[in-house]
């Protein structure tokens, strides 16, 4: 798991700034470590030689200053890391959202929104740990041991040599242990995942277990599974902790060896007390950053994973191609023709999603004449929704073109074109706000009278007035929940309010009870006159009411027998 995805370093300026800040702070921290050891040894050695408290006041005072400076530098590391994490995640969030809106609004094969949103908000915690804890330790682990060895070597090359001896032991042993366990570790983690999910599975299925009178029996099974989990986990931990212990062993052995070697030399008079003490105080500082790094290692993976997830999503969306007039320079867009006067034509249109190998639409030909209602019938996943997306300019065809009259849709200004369309998706979204505000999505400047008329046309007015606050009732996330039928009718009211010449309906009666279906069908009838309506549907009665019905199968359109209007 790469700690810092190169994409992240490239995209997020905050990360680059942080890297520089951390390196600077790391060097400062290393110097402070050296200073602390030198000063402590100086005070103790002088006292050993008979100095009084007044004599050592200066080094003691400096020691206090160094201690304060170390505290400040530790604080600075954390602040820098957290700020950077906040900035990075904020930037990633906004990128995700902007890329989605501009490049891939249809997102028919996208990630579940709630999970993604949570990751984009709470993911900052994991990233904070990585940038505020792990990264500084990484820098310190690179800088401090070098500084310590350098100073130690300048004081006493032999002691430095001893320290240097123990250091390589660490990666060698850890590599050996790691190789031995890697294969077994993977199998272990899979088994552990199964065991870990057992409890969740059982709790989720509690109502079913109770219904079959089997919930008591499961209680014993939980204890059994927990025991298995414990045994399996302990088996893995025994080896995992070994690598950490090797690092600690190297550290304690290093300290002990240095103490003994230096101690013997002191007795023989080969080294002074102050030098010896300095080297001894330095010794643990050699290993400390590495030990801290090892302790934080697990944290690094989580932060990296969050960033990677968001970056992958941005890249995936970027690969899509929505038609948007963001750079009018290249398109020289013209105002779109009036669909009430010209036909809409799909000319040999093919389309496939960037992540798939199969064409959803293949050399599709379709013509919609002004004022007619066409039903598009076909199996789920056959491409009906995709076709509507292309007409909305959410994506560009991989080959072929869509013509509005004589103009290619790709040459038109997308926002202007969409003003001519009213769209009702299969799962309409209710935004947080009042019912009236939701309907006004169709036309923000409409007055109340027009909103009411649109709702009446859509068959929504009746249930809205019976709501506690009528049109001012708050709906959407956290507001009053509405049934599927009610939501569909509100979406139809939106479309009605827009008063657009083209109306696109994606499965308007799917998953509705018979009563709601009737209301929706009647509403569509009222909406039709004088507009181009393209209906994707399963429902035979809806298809029967259209002027024409076409079958979309295997990416192609087939004419059905013309149905009497």
């Amino acid at each position, binding site marked *: 798991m790469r700690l810092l995805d190169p994409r992240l370093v490239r995209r997020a300026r905050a990360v680059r700034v942080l890297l520089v800040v951390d390196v600077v702070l790391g060097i400062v921290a290393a110097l402070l470590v050296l200073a602390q050891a030198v000063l402590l040894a100086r005070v*103790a050695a002088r006292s*050993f030689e008979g100095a009084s408290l007044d004599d050592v006041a200066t080094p003691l005072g400096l020691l206090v200053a160094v201690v304060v400076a170390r505290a400040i530098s530790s604080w600075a590391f954390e602040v820098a890391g957290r700020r950077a994490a906040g900035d990075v995640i904020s930037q990633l969030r906004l990128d995700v959202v902007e890329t989605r809106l501009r490049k891939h609004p249809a997102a028919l094969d996208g990630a579940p929104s709630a999970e993604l949103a949570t990751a984009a908000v709470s993911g900052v915690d994991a990233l904070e740990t990585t940038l505020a804890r792990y990264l500084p330790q990484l820098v310190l682990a690179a800088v401090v041991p070098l500084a310590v060895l350098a100073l130690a070597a300048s004081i006493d090359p032999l002691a430095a040599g001893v320290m240097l001896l123990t250091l390589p032991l660490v990666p060698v042993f850890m590599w050996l242990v790691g190789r031995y366990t890697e294969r077994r570790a993977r199998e272990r983690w899979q088994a552990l995942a199964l065991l870990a999910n057992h*409890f969740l599975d059982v709790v989720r299925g509690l109502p079913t277990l109770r219904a079959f009178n089997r919930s008591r029996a499961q209680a014993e099974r939980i204890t059994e599974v927990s025991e298995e989990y414990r045994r399996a986990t302990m088996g893995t931990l025994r080896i995992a902790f070994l690598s950490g212990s090797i690092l600690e062993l190297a550290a304690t052995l290093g300290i002990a060896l240095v*103490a003994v070697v230096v101690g013997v030399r*002191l007795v023989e008079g080969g080294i002074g007390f102050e030098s010896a003490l300095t080297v001894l105080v330095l010794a643990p500082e050699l290993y400390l950053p590495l030990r801290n790094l090892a302790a934080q290692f697990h944290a690094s993976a989580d932060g990296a994973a969050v960033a990677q997830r968001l970056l992958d999503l941005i890249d995936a969306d970027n690969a899509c191609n929505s038609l948007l007039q963001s750079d009018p320079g290249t398109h020289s867009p013209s105002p779109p023709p009036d669909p009430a006067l010209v036909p809409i034509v799909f000319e040999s249109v093919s389309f496939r999603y960037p992540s798939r190998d199969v064409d959803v639409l293949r050399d599709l030909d379709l013509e919609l004449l002004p004022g007619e209602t066409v039903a598009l019938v076909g199996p789920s996943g056959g491409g009906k929704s995709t076709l509507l997306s292309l007409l909305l300019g959410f994506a560009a065809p991989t080959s072929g073109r869509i013509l509005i009259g004589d103009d290619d849709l790709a040459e038109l200004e997308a926002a202007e074109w969409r003003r001519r369309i009213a*769209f009702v998706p299969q799962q309409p979204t209710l935004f947080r706000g009042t019912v009236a505000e939701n309907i006004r999505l169709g036309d923000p400047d409409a007055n109340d009278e027009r909103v009411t008329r649109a709702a009446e046309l859509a068959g929504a007015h009746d249930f809205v007035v019976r709501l506690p606050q009528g049109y001012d009732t708050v709906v959407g996330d956290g507001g009053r929940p509405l049934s599927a039928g009610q939501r569909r009718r509100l979406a139809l009211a939106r479309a009605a309010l827009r008063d657009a010449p083209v109306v696109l309906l994606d499965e308007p009666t799917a998953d509705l009870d*018979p009563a709601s279906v009737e209301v929706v069908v009647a509403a569509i009838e009222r909406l039709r006159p004088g507009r181009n309506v393209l209906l994707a549907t399963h429902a035979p009665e809806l298809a029967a009411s259209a002027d024409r019905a076409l079958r979309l199968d295997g990416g192609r359109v087939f004419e059905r027998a013309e149905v009497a209007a």
Partner: protein
Amino acid sequence: MTTIGRLLELGGLPRGRVALSIGLGALALGFGVALMTTAGYLISRAAEQPPILALTTIIVVVRFLALARPLARYLERLASHDLALQALGRIRSRVYERIEPLAPAELEAFRRGDVVSRLVGDVDALQGLYLRGLGPPLVALGLSVACVVAVAVVLPVAALALAVGLALGGIVVPLLAGRLGRRAGRRQAAARGELTAELVELLRGAPELVAYGREEEALARVRTADGELLRLGRRDALVAGLADALTVLVAGLTTAAVLALAVASHGAGELDRVLVATLALLALSSFDAVAPLPSAARELSGTLASGRRVLHLAERVPLVADPLEPAQLPRAPVTVALQGVTARYPSSISPVLKSFDLRLEPGSRVALVGPSGAGKTTVTNLLLRFLDPTEGRVTIDGVDLRDLRQEDVRRTFALAGQDAHVFDSSIRENLRLARPAATDAELRGALRRARLDDWVEALPDGLDTLVGEDGASLSGGQRQRLVIARALLADAPVLLLDEPTAHLDGPTARELVADALDAADDRAVLLITHRPEGLELVDAVVTVPEPA
């Protein structure tokens, strides 16, 4: 304190294991402190240039400590994790036992899907109590006392300084860390919730926002919410690192203080010169004991929050209970009825059903229809006695369900449908839920009646095929058929089909309902649905009105 107490009661406190874990922790830390101290003493003594033999013992001690410390630490980590895992098993069992009688009607969690994962996440997070809440503070306390006493033997005034320093670093700073973390968490919670809501809305509604040309407004709202969270985060960042920096400061200043006192004391001729460096190193390394406490305190507040949520659930008293003198379950065939039933869930005041009547004769097929969100699933909950009515009665052959044992009531019904859970196990295990002693022949029989046998025969692992989390590796139709086969295997007089056709397209749904009704033979069937498929095959259709 009581929260921790109640949680420990839930998870257990095996004295032996806890003592072992704490003891090893104290040894590991103690050896570490002793190592630095003895090394300092060795150097100081060596500087007096005594005969080498005088140092031999110290050298041996140093070497021993160098080996003993990693070993003790390794064993301590194993012991503490073992303890935590054991406790986890116990907590899971206990929590399961406590919530079992509450599911599904009395637990909000079961009517809101993914809240169950949070419950399980909370339970698992309680391991933290054992790993970070028990050992580290007690070890820190024990070791601090030992160090202070050791110093007091040679220089009482320095011992005082050390005691103050350790108290600050071991009590004040961790408490501060916990409090600062909590406050930051609360401040950010609202902003995070707002931003998450805006993001979800934008991501879900992207097609409509773009189609209606309103994407810029939505983006602006997200940017505002994001900016607010960023501002709060920056403020909190300043405070966040404070606790750890204070630990470094306290450790350093205390060491300097001890050093100064040692120097002064030696200068006054009251302390042997060998002990000056020794005491300083002792003071410095003693802070290893309290160093992990600030982050432990921070994590502990999160663990306690999880714990409170778990306790809230685990300490509920179930509303549905068996009668003291249960009546005999009427023998099949039976007539099931709801008479003038008004019902509501414990968490809300308005009833979901009002004066509702339903009658299910033996062998009859009744469909229950109505808009989604009405009380259709509540009817299932009432029949299975997961919920009791507030008015009216639910009866089997005239006997009120409240006079029967819950176990007997549930033997009358077999549940299938969208909410029936498929377990992350094999086909065989899922089917055996209905009849644990069923033979493979019986399992295949049920699969045949549900028209799933050909598909199972064709699978390489047959009945042992794993079906994935909630039947994820099965198609919608296959999952429903499996669930129906299971219900048929239960051999109950009444079959409850609760939304069996959700998410299936028209033709598949029609086939499924027809097959299910056919396979039901002479059982009574209650078909709950909001779709038209299958309504032509039933004897009667009852509508559940939308709740007022």
